[in-house]
């Protein structure tokens, strides 16, 4: 019920910000552009990160803005579609005069925006694109999340050390760069720990029947299965694995984190593990404050990792603008690159030479229909 009411609310709100944002020319404030997947296939991710970003900007403006000026956020929707991102990013930079650009969750679409920002010398901060290639585009591209090699290694260590598994099956979505990358780094890490990959099966994102592959996995008798997919596929995989009597733990990455996983998977996803960027039930004071503010702003909705990263991306950029002391794009870029220990909601961030955030990951377990915090893994 809650979700059903939220979606129209969020959509209406997005439309509103878009309308008021589009018509207005900058009135002396600092213009920050944002592109996000507010509609379409990955809308859950886009809406979350956008809400986090919005909360950050409102918090900044309530405290008097940045460098004494108001921050203006102009948001554009790319409809989760390839091709649309370049249109909206070009518009944000050349027409709206954004001094910096925030976006997006999906790596493939961040990769589309990165060359445009790089060419124009406009700093871009991605909240949640974990594919290493994103920041390789050039020295203007940053991110506030960890990258897949780290996430893959974290899960490999967790599976071999905490779960004490020695034989693992890997079940990859061959349609997604994210899934293939994560699977590769997991396999490297796990074999380095002395583990053995007993079966490697593939599926295509959007498939509905996984029993053929799961039966083969069952036949190989592994101790755990690594499924680096997105939440809709993972939910169906968990259901069919349970039907086939596959009772071993399933493990995955941050693509799992969505309420939809729990709604579809129900008791079939119980007890499984995944790595992500932050836990909303962690005890740290910055997390507690953020969760309270977010709930107040968005009708009691609990912020997920994408919301926290969206918030962090905006705060991280504002911090750099403050340190740069100007809104000149080169000065902002240099200040972003010089970030050493920025206190973000998702943990302490240091920017390395590749402009990636060095930070910790958390591992969550699904318990009683909720994501439960299990442990934090330092970089």
């Amino acid at each position: 019920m809650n979700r059903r009411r939220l979606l129209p609310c969020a959509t209406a709100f997005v439309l509103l910000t878009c309308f008021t944002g589009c018509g207005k020319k900058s009135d002396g404030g600092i213009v920050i552009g944002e592109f996000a997947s507010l509609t379409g296939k990955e809308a859950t991710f886009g809406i979350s990160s956008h809400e986090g970003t919005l909360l950050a900007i409102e918090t900044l403006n309530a405290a008097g803005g940045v460098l004494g000026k108001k921050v203006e956020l102009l948001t554009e929707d790319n409809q989760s579609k390839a091709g649309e991102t370049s249109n909206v990013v070009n518009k944000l930079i050349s027409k709206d005069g954004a001094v910096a650009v925030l976006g997006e969750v999906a790596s493939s679409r961040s990769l589309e925006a990165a060359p445009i920002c790089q060419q124009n010398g406009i700093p871009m901060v991605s909240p949640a694109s974990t594919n290493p290639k994103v920041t390789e585009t050039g020295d203007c591209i940053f991110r506030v999340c960890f990258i897949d090699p780290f996430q893959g290694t974290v899960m490999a260590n967790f599976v071999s050390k905490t779960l004490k598994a020695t034989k693992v099956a890997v079940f990859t979505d061959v349609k997604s760069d994210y899934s293939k990358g994560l699977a590769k780094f997991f396999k490297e890490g796990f074999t380095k720990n002395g583990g053995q990959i007993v079966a490697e099966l593939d599926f295509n994102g959007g498939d509905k029947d996984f029993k053929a592959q799961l039966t083969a996995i069952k036949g190989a008798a592994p101790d755990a299965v690594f499924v680096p997919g997105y939440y809709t596929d993972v939910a169906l995989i968990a259901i069919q694995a349970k039907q086939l009597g596959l009772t071993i733990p399933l493990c995955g990455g941050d693509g799992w984190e969505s309420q939809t996983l729990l709604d579809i998977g129900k008791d079939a996803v119980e007890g499984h593990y995944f790595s992500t960027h932050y836990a909303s039930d962690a005890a740290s004071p910055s997390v507690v404050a953020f969760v309270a503010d977010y709930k107040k702003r968005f009708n009691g909705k609990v912020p997920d990792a994408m919301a926290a990263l969206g918030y962090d991306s905006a705060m991280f950029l504002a911090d750099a603008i403050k340190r740069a002391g100007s809104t000149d794009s080169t000065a902002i870029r240099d200040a972003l690159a010089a970030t050493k220990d920025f206190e973000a909601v998702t943990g302490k961030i240091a920017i390395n030479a590749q402009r990636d955030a060095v930070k910790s990951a958390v591992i969550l377990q699904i318990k009683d229909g909720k994501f439960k915090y299990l442990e934090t893994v330092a970089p």
Partner: protein
Amino acid sequence: MDWLLQQLINGLALGSIYALIALGYTMVYGVLRFINFAHADVLMLGAYAAYFLAPAVSTVFPLPSLTGALIVTLLSVMICTGIGILIEFLAYRPLRQRPRLTVLITAIGVSLLIEFTCQHEAVFGADTKPFPQLLPVHDFNIGGLVIGSNDLVVVVTTLVLLAALWFIVQRTKMGTAMRAVSFNQQAAALMGININRIISFTFGLGSALAAIAGILYALKAPGIDPLMGVQPGLRAFIAAVLGGIGNLPGAALGGLLLGLLETFAGGISGLSNYRDGIAFAILILILLFKPAGLLGKASVEKV
């Protein structure tokens, strides 16, 4: 050995779903000589109808239960029958006298229209929705082999509907009229058969089948989205061609064969990426040797 038998069960369960969808394709083709590409989207609408009806029905008949499931299915079938007749009336009937290719392209247009309208936030939205559990689920475990109750329901439903369809087409007055229309529309009209009524009936029946298939498909994989019909629809269309399009038992046979091929190809470690490739390569081979399909009769068209 266990592994092989389990894959056999998985394949039969998947194949039955394809068979059920293929029946709808093949029946409409049998009468009208035209592929209704919107069939897969009516299937999706059937699943969504059940998704929206289930909470209402469960206030009277608590779900999951057999009665509740039957009522939800019946109501969805009625809705989809209406939609099917409406699609025929609005999109295909005005083109009755046009070349068949025009109708075929229109069918693709109707299919895309339904898919993308439903993806709009104001209609269903593009995100995946959790499908409610309509039937009580029990997994039978026989000596290490697992058979899901939903899979049994699919197999039984497919068999029952196949028999029912065969009876309607071969043994009823309506079926005789359908066959007459399929044979020669003009001659049938001269014999006093109301062509429009027969064609509407055919579409209604096909859409009813699609609704049932949609609900069973959603029970098997309980996450539904507006594009859920595309993949199984394509497979079922191929199954219908494989069995000999226009032939009811052929569609069922083609569906089962395709399900088995996909399952066995998908269960091979390292090759599962190519499962569709392997399955379809074998299908091409079969069609090379039997161009009219497994049970289809080769016909000579007079020019």
